[in-house]
Each structure stands twice: as C-alpha cells, then as structure tokens.
C-alpha cells in the first residue's frame, strides 16, 4: 500500500512537472509609468503586448512592445503658466524571468529586461536610448488557460556621464497560455 502510494505521489509529481514545462503565453497589459525626480516629463499611461516562453519551471524568457504617453511638464514663465509636450515613447525589448511563470495558480517571479527606447516629442529631435528595468510580478493562472498578471518595475535609462532617467511602472495584464504549463 505504502509502495503504491509512494509511486502514485512520484507519478503525480512528475506529471505536474511535465505539465509545467513548455508554457508559452501572450497577452496585452495596461498600466502607468511614473517618472522619478524628473521635471521634464510627467506620469502617463502605458499599453503593451508581451510574450513569454518558459522552457523550465523557474526560468523564462520573453519579448515585449510598449507604447507610453508622458504627461506634459509645466513651468511658471514670464507670461504665465505653460506646458510643453511630454511626448510618446515606444519600446521593444527582451525579458528574463526568474521564478514561476507557468502552472495553474499564483506564480511569483522576478523580471529583468533590456529594451530599445524611442521618445518622440513635438518640435524636438527623437531620442533613442537603451532602457533597463527590473521588478517583481505575480500572475494567477486560471484553469481556462488565462492568467491575470500584475507587475511593478523600476526602469533606468542611462543618459551618459553617469546620469539617468528613472521611472516606476506598474501594469495589469491578461495572458493566454498555450502549452502544458497552464493546463
């Protein structure tokens, strides 16, 4: 009896592991980007699409596209209060995840990403930079292959001369899981 129970538990564990392998997920997200100590831009909305691939349980890789709107900065000038265009930003990037990103239930992970960043503003030259972000996230994957994800990120964009632009970002997203991991 004990042997059958042990074998049964081992088979169950192996099956669970197998089900957690090879998960692919894709989905949109929406959130906010909040510049930190930056008088050149204000907070704005963020929309993105991401894809994740988890070949093994605790490692995953992904790609993302983000589109952000910055709020307009304001200043008191000699003719009164004025604003200028905060601009729009688009970013393509690669993500790496340490932690659990697949499997039914709550999955916690730490993410780091690198992205190519293009900032466009009225009457000004476009600015292209490399952006780095990291932060924790959680995704609750439902048995219907859908996951609801929330993530907070700290982004640093080095500007040269040891300076940088920094932002805090958060989003809530919905992912569709394809593969064994979410089944």
């Amino acid at each position, binding site marked *: 009896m004990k042997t059958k129970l042990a074998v049964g538990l081992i088979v169950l564990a192996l099956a669970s592991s197998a089900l957690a392998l090879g998960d692919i997920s894709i989905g949109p997200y929406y959130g906010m980007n909040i510049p930190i100590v930056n008088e050149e831009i204000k907070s704005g909305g963020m929309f993105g699409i991401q894809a994740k691939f988890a070949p093994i349980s605790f490692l995953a890789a992904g790609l993302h596209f983000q589109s952000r709107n910055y709020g307009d900065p304001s200043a008191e000038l*000699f*003719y009164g209060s004025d604003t*200028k*265009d905060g601009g729009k930003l688009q970013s393509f990037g690669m993500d790496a995840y340490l932690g659990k990103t697949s499997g039914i239930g709550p999955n916690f992970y730490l993410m780091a990403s690198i992205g190519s960043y293009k900032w466009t503003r009225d009457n*000004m030259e476009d600015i292209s930079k490399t952006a780095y972000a990291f932060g*924790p996230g959680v995704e609750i994957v439902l048995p219907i292959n859908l996951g609801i994800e929330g993530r907070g990120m700290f982004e*640093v964009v*080095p500007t040269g001369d040891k300076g*940088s632009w920094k932002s805090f970002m958060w989003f809530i997203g919905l992912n569709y899981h394809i593969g064994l991991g979410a089944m």
Partner: protein
Amino acid sequence: MKRYFMILGFAAIAALTVSGCLLTIQKTLIEDINIGNTTNNNVARYWVDLYTNEDYADNFDKIKSVDVVSFVAKIYNLGTSANKAELYVSADTIPVNIDSIQARATRVFVSPSIAAGDSALITWNESHKYIQNEDVLKDFVLNRGRFWVYGIADSTPFSHRIIAQMVVTITAGK
C-alpha cells in the same frame, strides 16, 4: 526563493548606485534674458550669470548633462519692416555691433518673421523649433555659467523689444 529575490534586487540597486544612475535628478532651470529694446544702431545685450540662479547655484558642481535648452520670448517689432529676431551668445566680451556679433558670437535663436508693428509670443512648446546650435548653448550652461546674449535681427534696419527666458533642463547628482 524569497531570499534569492531579495539578493538579486539589492545587487541590482547596488550596481546602479555604484554607477551613479540612481542618484541623479532632472531639474528645470529658468533664467531671465532681458534684452529689452534693441536696434541696428544700438544693439542690446544681456549678461547671463547662472550662478545667481538659485537652482543652478545649488547644482552646478553636480551637473551630469544639460539635456534641453530653449528660449521662450515675447518679441515686439517696433520697426517699419518685417524681420526675424535673433539671439547670439558669446562667452567673451566683443564689440556690440552687428558685424562683430555675427562674426564672433554664435547664433542660438531665430524667431519667425514678425510684421512691422506686430509681436510674437514663443511658447515653451514652440521654443524648440527656433533653437540653433543647441550644443553650444549646452556647453555654455555646463562649462561656463556666465555669458553674453545679444539681440539682433536677420535684416536691417530693425527695432525690437525682446523679453525672454532661457529654460534649461539638467541632469544633476552625485
């Protein structure tokens, strides 16, 4: 697992702190540029001393980069013909006449054409369209802090009244 996350998080923050990335801020400075009345026979200039600007004085030794410089301005064309107002900058004291200014100073601003008797307001959002040689301006802000600004026009005769401010965004920190 939680311990690994914390170690990784602290390692990332430590790396960014060591590289200086976390300790910088973006600050917008506003400096009056009161050129006033300027004509082809009596060119006006204004001495900019950013060290008297509280925000600059607090940060000048911590400036990592000068990110954006522009001029907002209200320009009155008091003359009899349409022309464009121009601002030049020079770190050296040079003769205050049009030829010397055009030869020895750097043009950093050209307004749109303003009809005789008319005026133009260059707002903050528009101001970037009219900036020239921004790298020179950035260098003056970053490395000098004190310089002359001259007000002339693209054609003579001219008679302008120029009220302006220089708006500068810097990245500063330890």
